[in-house]
């Protein structure tokens, strides 16, 4: 009699719940084994790729060392078809960190080893299926196009913007924006509408790569974009230092109700020199949201005038340390850090916290300037 028969015969005259418990145990044992197999397969793949990677690194380390010094190595090790993707990854890691001279040598190596062909093949899944983690590999191939820029790789890149995989699409759009591939604007806008819930991330990545050009062509869509996307827009506008974005930010400031956005825009506006900014920021010193007031006080230190000190004074008595601190910093800046002026102001204050924070900010700025 086998195990199954002995179990069923044992359970025959037992209550139902006992049978359920036995079959439950069997199902759960299978589940545990399946989970272990999954982890094991996942890990074996990981080990194989680590092994291959170590081998490629060992073979190519010396070559890369020569190239880094600007010299030609005596010979180049052969690369098998199966190792080409790993070589591409290793090459890309070096290329991304390379200085100009080393970069030129690595680009020449890419031409010799026909990495453009490898990239095109990797991006065409029908022709080249080597690794189980194809998406990861395709991501590397897309990133490499930034340096291996040929007609063929550009064509493959634009094709990848139509992929169903969000990660690859974002990668492809990012590199297209960096290389200003013909028609990239259309692809990016299409992608954002194709993946509406991920539009903020797509926008962030793409505009980081494409800089203020991308911000300009996305500006008509700003009012229809979700909050996160606008936050990224603001943060990138700040990084770009592009004055021409100020009217867009002012326009958005008037329309938005999102307090985080208002705080970010006010902070960003403080970085620019542009007519009318001071007048635009002053009302936000009395905004009900703490973060907005902090950013407005900070921005006033940059765009304000000495007359504005009176408007900032009430904020020195706030119960929030950061607001008092930013206000005190702004006042120090506006009075050009002249202690006599600050001392007079300090004497006129009633609140001990206000006095304390003015002294703190002055000493800090004085220390920084020495």
């Amino acid at each position: 009699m086998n195990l199954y028969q002995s179990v069923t015969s044992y359970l025959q005259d037992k209550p139902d719940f006992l049978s359920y418990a036995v079959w439950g145990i069997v199902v759960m044992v299978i589940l545990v084994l399946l989970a272990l197999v999954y982890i094991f397969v996942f890990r074996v793949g990981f080990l194989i790729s680590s092994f291959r990677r170590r081998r490629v690194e060992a073979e190519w380390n010396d070559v890369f060392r020569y190239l880094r010094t600007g010299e030609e190595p005596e010979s180049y090790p052969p690369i098998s078809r199966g190792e080409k993707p790993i070589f591409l990854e290793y090459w890309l890691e070096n290329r991304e960190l390379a200085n100009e001279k080393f970069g030129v040598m690595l680009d020449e190596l890419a031409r010799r080893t026909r990495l453009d062909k490898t990239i095109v093949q990797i991006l065409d899944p029908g022709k080249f299926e080597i690794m189980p983690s194809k998406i990861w590999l395709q991501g590397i191939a897309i990133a490499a196009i930034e340096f291996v820029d040929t007609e063929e790789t550009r064509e493959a890149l634009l094709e990848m913007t139509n992929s169903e995989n969000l990660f690859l699409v974002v990668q492809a759009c990012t590199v297209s924006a960096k290389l200003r591939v013909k028609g990239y604007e259309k692809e990016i806008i299409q992608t954002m509408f194709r993946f509406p819930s991920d539009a903020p991330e797509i926008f962030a990545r793409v505009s980081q790569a494409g800089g203020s050009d991308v911000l300009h062509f996305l500006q008509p869509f700003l009012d229809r974009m979700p909050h996160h996307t606008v936050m990224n827009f603001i943060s990138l506008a700040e990084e770009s230092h592009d004055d021409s974005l100020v009217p867009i930010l002012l326009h958005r400031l008037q329309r938005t109700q999102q307090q985080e956005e208002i705080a970010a825009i006010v902070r960003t506006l403080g970085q620019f020199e542009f007519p009318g900014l001071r007048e635009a920021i002053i009302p936000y010193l009395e905004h009900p949201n703490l973060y907005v007031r902090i950013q407005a006080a900070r921005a006033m230190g940059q765009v304000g005038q000495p007359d504005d000190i009176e408007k900032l004074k009430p904020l020195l008595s706030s119960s929030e340390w950061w607001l008092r601190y930013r206000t005190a910093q702004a006042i120090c800046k506006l009075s050009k850090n002249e202690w006599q002026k600050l001392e007079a102001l300090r004497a006129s204050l009633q609140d001990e916290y206000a006095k304390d924070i003015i002294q703190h900010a002055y000493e800090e700025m004085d220390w920084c300037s020495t």
Partner: protein
Amino acid sequence: MLDLNAIEHAIIIGFLIYVVLCSGSYLVLNIIAFDSLRHYLRQQRTHETEALYTGLEPPISVIVPAYNEGTTIIASLRSILQLNYPNLEIVVVNDGSSDNTLDVMKSYFEMEEFPEAPRISVPCEKIRGVYLSRRIDGLRLIDKENGGKADAINAGINLSRSPLFCCIDADSVLEPSALLRVVQPFLSNSDVIATGGTIRVANGCKVKNGHLISRGLPKNPLALFQLVEYLRAFLFGRIGWSRIRGLLIISGAFGVFKKQAVIQAGGYAKDTIGEDMELILRMYRILNKAGIKHRVEFIPDPVCWTEVPESLKVFASQRKRWHRGLSESLYVNRDLMFSKGSGVVGWVSYPFFILFEWLSPFVELAGYLFTAYLLIMGKVSPIDSAIVFGFAVMLSMVLSVVSFLLDEITFPGTTRIRGILAMLFVSFLECFGYRQLNMLYKIQGAYAWFANKKHEWGTMTRSGSWQN
């Protein structure tokens, strides 16, 4: 006359319903956690946290309560100083230590007394002095009279300068990007009042100069059991609860809070044992009453490494304290249950915690006693009871394996296969002794709460072997 067989049958059915409801709920939490993690990781792939919000992160005060932490405080602070976060202030609160914590801090970080008028927003014991480091910018030390961990955090809140504060145990080590990630929910949603991250067991790992240099499994069997337990609790429990907006706990070892919301709730309660859970429940209750929108979130990948007890005595004291804390927190905030507008917290999480967390040790004990009775009376065979016990063992193993899977997905390739197999074996073994011990300590904790016994904190013996 009552039919004994019918009563026994009804009890068995009652137990079965409890087990099915309990395991069903955990299974649902598992599925939610899987989905949530998949969504989170997908977002992370295309999301470059550090680049996106540079300069816009709200300032954070890290509050480190320290009581007799003279041997570990420097290593802990070194780890906090490695944190990749702009606008960071560190406030160490020496809670009247009887060891050399204060002297070690003063000499190592060149602390100088810096008189400061604190705004007392939440009650705390007398502050003896405030010190500022000449060596590290933004590092302050508060020396106060002993009042317990909650009191020390309250003192830190009173003297902290930032709108957000983060609580870290002095014996914990954080991953460098932990704060950047855990603060994300505050940036994207102004209703967020608290966030927490994953806590992992540090026993068996090596830390040098505040950096975790190698991961490993603890050699101590008690710590191994706790490792598996932590994985289960953090990798599907909290992720699942957070997804359905029903998270009731942010671990005291690592959490970020909106200072204003905590002050509004009255700060940390000094007279409770599980102050971290009690605070969250009280915040829910008070903010809900005041009609203020609020939410608590959990982020799976910010990791905080902490040492778990390796001796049975300390372990027993900790578990009793936890269950007593759970009892107190649930009782004190009982108005939250089924209250209007309390949402998932009041209608799902709270009753769940009473039924399947607070009550579970009692049900488990009743189950063992009832099985023993049935065996003695010859009403069930030993094989039958072994089958039911086997079912419970397998259920626990499935939940553990799912957490290993989630761990593999979140941190691929970080635990060795040998380690996974060892943990699987431990998750099997825990049903034979560890689980029952835990159950007994929990019952003792609940009894201590019920009898209103004075709690002795005991001493957490730190081996410190993982820190250099």
